[in-house]
């Protein structure tokens, strides 16, 4: 989460000061929202005239709109992904320049307009592409057509919105009557239009919650609404993916109501999915790539370039994407009779690894349990060795109630008292357990950090030095895949997450506190 936060923060830092102080960015690396209302920033807000405020609004709109356009075309032709990425980067570049110059002079307006022009041209290209491909794609023509129409309408909508906002900036009356509330409402509405999927997936609450919490800093809210709205949604998906793989069986989407994508085995098992178009370095996350891009020049440092491209920007009706496992015969394969699609790419990855790959990760503690997903191993290792609830049949349980349930069920089974019972009272060991958990979690993280570093450690370190990469990521890149991520999420997520898993996240979060502190200090040291 702090990654995103930082992104937001960076946005603000960048635009408010319209400068490019690196130190500023680093300072905002602290994984807490409180940074947003740090006095430094506030002062800047006060300094900058109210005008600035509106610029901000507009700026965010642009943020949303632009990526949405490019992003929406992604699903259609995954093969040209990288190409589009290039385009996008270029746009972002321009966009940044736009932003810099946005100071109510006609030139800015001109820029805006030229940008719009470019967008329209892009759309034209897209339509051309579609026309060109129509002949080739024979399967499911109707569906594809509908899809394409949706995409085009989505892009058109975004262009219109952009146009209106540009026009709005010309009206002096509008910009000089800034009341704190309307922008939010406006944005909220826009959000509704632009990111219907966010609302659709039930996470529309999140931005609202953020409103309430960040009432002190209006502008922050706006950004948060836009940026975090959909992103948080993503995070949740990432967290729950383990459950989701099983849980989505209950999801009864009628066949055809969603688009089925199927990644190939190589794609699934590739360690990186995002590659730098300049140096070719691979990243697991787009956000990290964007951070990395900053090293390639100032044009990548603009808020627009750094902001997360919005994936869900297509207009309603939402096109639901579902994934198919490439393994033929698998229930998750689209050819299967009772095909049950996977929800996200992460689901695909984990499913494929768990089901169709060797279990290459062996628990270093018990040397028996094997896993194919490293996150599973981590989860296991957290509890491994603590299966102290032992039955006479030899079965161990990590929870006492599970043991007692087992004993209640089977005749002749009885609780086995550990031989070293005298060492300490078994009853009052709860406190000890927690203590163990903390220390263990710490050590595990360390292990992973070192393991993962063997591959791309050097680069990572470089990243950190440039204050580009997430310090915690450097510490243990794998953290992102699992519960640790939840730990960092805690502040923003915990209050409104009522799912069962939130509890465990909280736990892991609390386990991570010391480490987090370490990460912070490391980042500040690097300054």
């Amino acid at each position, binding site marked *: 989460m702090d990654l995103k936060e930082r992104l937001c923060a960076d946005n603000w830092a960048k635009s408010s000061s319209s400068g490019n102080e690196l130190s500023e960015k680093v300072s905002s690396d602290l994984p807490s929202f409180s940074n947003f209302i740090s006095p430094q920033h506030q002062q800047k807000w006060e300094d900058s005239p109210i005008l600035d405020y509106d610029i901000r609004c507009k700026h965010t709109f642009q943020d949303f709109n632009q990526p949405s356009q490019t992003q929406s075309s992604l699903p259609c032709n995954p093969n040209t992904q990288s190409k589009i990425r290039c385009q996008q980067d270029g746009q972002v570049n321009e966009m940044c320049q736009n932003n810099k110059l946005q100071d109510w002079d006609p030139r800015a307006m001109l820029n805006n307009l030229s940008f719009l022009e470019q967008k329209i041209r892009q759309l034209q290209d897209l339509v051309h592409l579609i026309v060109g491909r129509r002949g080739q794609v024979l399967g499911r023509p109707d569906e594809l057509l509908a899809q394409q129409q949706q995409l085009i309408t989505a892009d058109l909508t975004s262009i219109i919105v952009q146009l209106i906002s540009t026009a709005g900036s010309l009206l002096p009356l509008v910009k000089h009557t800034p009341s704190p509330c309307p922008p939010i409402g406006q944005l909220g509405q826009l959000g509704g239009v632009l990111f219907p999927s966010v609302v659709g997936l039930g996470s529309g609450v999140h931005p609202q919650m953020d409103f309430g919490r960040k009432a002190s800093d209006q502008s922050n809210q706006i950004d948060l609404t836009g940026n975090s709205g959909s992103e948080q949604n993503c995070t949740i998906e990432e967290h729950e993916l383990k459950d989701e793989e099983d849980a989505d069986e209950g999801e009864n989407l009628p066949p055809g109501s969603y688009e089925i994508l199927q990644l190939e085995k190589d794609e699934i098992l590739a360690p990186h999915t995002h590659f730098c178009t300049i140096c070719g370095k691979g990243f697991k996350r787009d956000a990290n790539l964007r951070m990395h891009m900053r090293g390639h020049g100032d044009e990548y440092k603009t808020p627009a370039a750094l902001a997360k491209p919005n994936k869900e920007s297509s207009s309603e009706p939402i096109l639901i994407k579902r994934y198919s496992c490439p393994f033929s015969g698998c229930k998750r394969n689209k050819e299967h009779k009772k095909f049950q699609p996977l929800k996200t790419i992460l689901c695909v990855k984990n499913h494929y690894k768990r089901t169709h790959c060797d279990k290459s990760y062996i628990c270093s503690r018990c040397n028996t349990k094997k896993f194919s997903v490293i996150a599973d191993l981590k989860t296991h290792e957290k509890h491994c060795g603590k299966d102290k*609830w032992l039955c006479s049949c030899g079965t161990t349980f990590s929870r*006492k*109630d599970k043991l*007692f349930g087992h*004993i*209640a069920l089977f005749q*002749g*089974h*009885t*609780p086995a*008292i550990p031989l070293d*019972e*005298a060492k300490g*009272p*078994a*009853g*009052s060991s709860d406190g000890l357990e927690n203590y163990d958990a903390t220390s263990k979690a710490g050590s595990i993280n360390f292990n992973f950090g070192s393991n993962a570093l063997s591959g791309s450690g050097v680069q990572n370190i470089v990243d950190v030095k440039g204050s580009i990469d997430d310090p915690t990521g450097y510490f243990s890149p794998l953290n992102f895949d699992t519960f640790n991520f939840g730990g960092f999420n805690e502040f923003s997520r915990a209050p409104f997450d009522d799912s069962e898993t939130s509890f465990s996240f909280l736990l892991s979060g609390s386990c991570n506190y010391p480490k987090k502190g370490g990460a912070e200090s490391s980042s500040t040291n690097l300054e």
Partner: protein
Amino acid sequence: MKKQKTIETITNNNNIFDLLSEEIIFTILDNLNQNPLDKKSFSLVCKSFYTTESNHRKTLKPLRPDHLKTILTRYPNTTHLDLSLCPRVTDSSLTTISNTCNSALKSINLSRSGFFSSNGLLSLAMKCKNLVEVDLSNATELRDAGAAAIAEARNLERLWLGRCKLVTDMGVGCIAVGCRKLRLLSLKWCLGVGDLGVGLVAIKCEELRSLDLSYLPITNKCLQSILKLHHLEDLVLEGCYGIDDDSLAVLKHGCKSLKTLDMSSCQNISHIGLSSLTSDSGGLHQLILAYGSPVTLALADSLKNLSMLQSIKLDGCIITCGGLKAIGNCCVSLKEISLSKCSGVTDEGLSSLVTKHKDLRKLDVTCCRKITDVSIAHITSSCTNLSSLRMESCTLVPREAFVLIGQRCHFLEELDLTDDEIDDEGLKSISRCHKLASLKLGICLNITDEGLAHVGRCCSKLTELDLYRSAGITDSGISAIAHGCPDLEMINISYCTNVTDSSLISLSKCLSLNTLESRGCPLVTSLGLTAIAVGCKQLMKLDVKKCHYIDDAGMLTLAHFSQNLRQINLSYSSVTDVGLLALASISCLQSMNILDLKGLTPGGLAAALLACGELTKVKLQVTFKSLLPQALLEHLEARGCVFQWRDQVYRAELDPKSWKLQLEDMVQ
């Protein structure tokens, strides 16, 4: 016994006892229970008597575990072994027991013993296959391993684990799986045991009749399975704070077989929880709700379904008048009501309650300070079958009212009038209760010898008399009691400052006397004590604290004659080293209070403590702590003796009247 001896010598080789079958002699021996020494005498008559007696005895209660092997070999038919007098029972003792008794042993009591571990228990459980009863209460060092060892006793039916605080769910789980025949299980104060352990017990031990879960940190989670037990009759949930109304509301059904339910000190349970718990328990006989939620109309209404209810205890509850009336109306016919220390008991409520329950046998209105003669009039007129009436500290009841008790309640066996206004007239009336066995007249300042003489004349079955601080009593009263009540077992004449040796001499005629408390009787001397020692062979507990004239002479005779003495309080008397050393020869002496003995030297004390092998508790001046060698104290503690160090200065006694005034001042 002497007769038997002569018979034996006359018949010489022709022993007529050879004609008696063993069964007949056993039947005779069965009736020889009065004095434990009788059987000893019998066995000493001849070899055949010795063998017969050895084969007859089934219960052993040894004072020390040292000679267990010899004892158990001598008594091969021992089925019940009570080791509660042995403070130190080691694993080797238990191994000896298990090797000697084998499968003969059915019951063992280790409730006051320490120093054994799971190994000893394991050998006991493995060898003594027929063990059905084990008392492990107060085994505070016992852990799950010990519980797991006990679980090997597959035939166990009754098990007490009170205050085994280190036993957890795991240990209890082992017992639940191992001892499937359990009928009684007491887990009182086993603070390590929670829902899981108790739940498993309820699932596995289907034969359970009685379950004590007092003060366990349990919730309704295990209650669900407990209430499914088909035979459960007695359930104690005292002080289970984890159970509340909300959790009880979830229970779908109560327990049909339940006869006794104790929910004392469950402040979180009101009438709502009670009704859901007892919804199916129509056969409930006894309900104990002491120190619980206020007794109101609603609570009383929830008793409506309990048609078999005979006894209800509401001690320490806040009670409303309406609640009392409603209990009177809804319950069929109660035999026992306890309202001790209930605030809110008024004449109106109590009267309407007792008039509805004419068959009442036991009534406890201790410290119901608001009731007056109105209540007493109603109680005595409607409950004429009353066998027990406790009305300590009912200070508003006038002296005339006590006459009514004697006039109307002739079947009283137990009467507690401590701190009441009763006078001689009342006592005279009460003496009509011929069955009276226990009479408590402590702090009754209005009574004199005259009244007590009536009691002595008529209440020949009196076994227990308490005259604590009843200052009007002198020797003549006591002597009337001593003559009229030959079965007297316990008497308390503490702070009856006018009592002299002649009282003790007359009391020495009461051969069954086992407890004598004459604390703070300044006129009592060693002479009186000697008479008691010679006469009352059963004496087990003696308190002569603050009797300044009690000295070594008394101790010497006591040591010689009172071989059953267990507890003695000699504080502030004139006993010295000599007396204490003499006392040490009493083999079963377990507890000594020897504060502030002027003539006591560290050397004498050390010798006495060493000589007294069975001591479990010694209370003495803190100054001795530094004067006694540390090694000695450690040795004694290893033997199972607990020291209580006190640093108290002697306070001069107030006379009883001003003492009571001071007490009342403190209350206000």
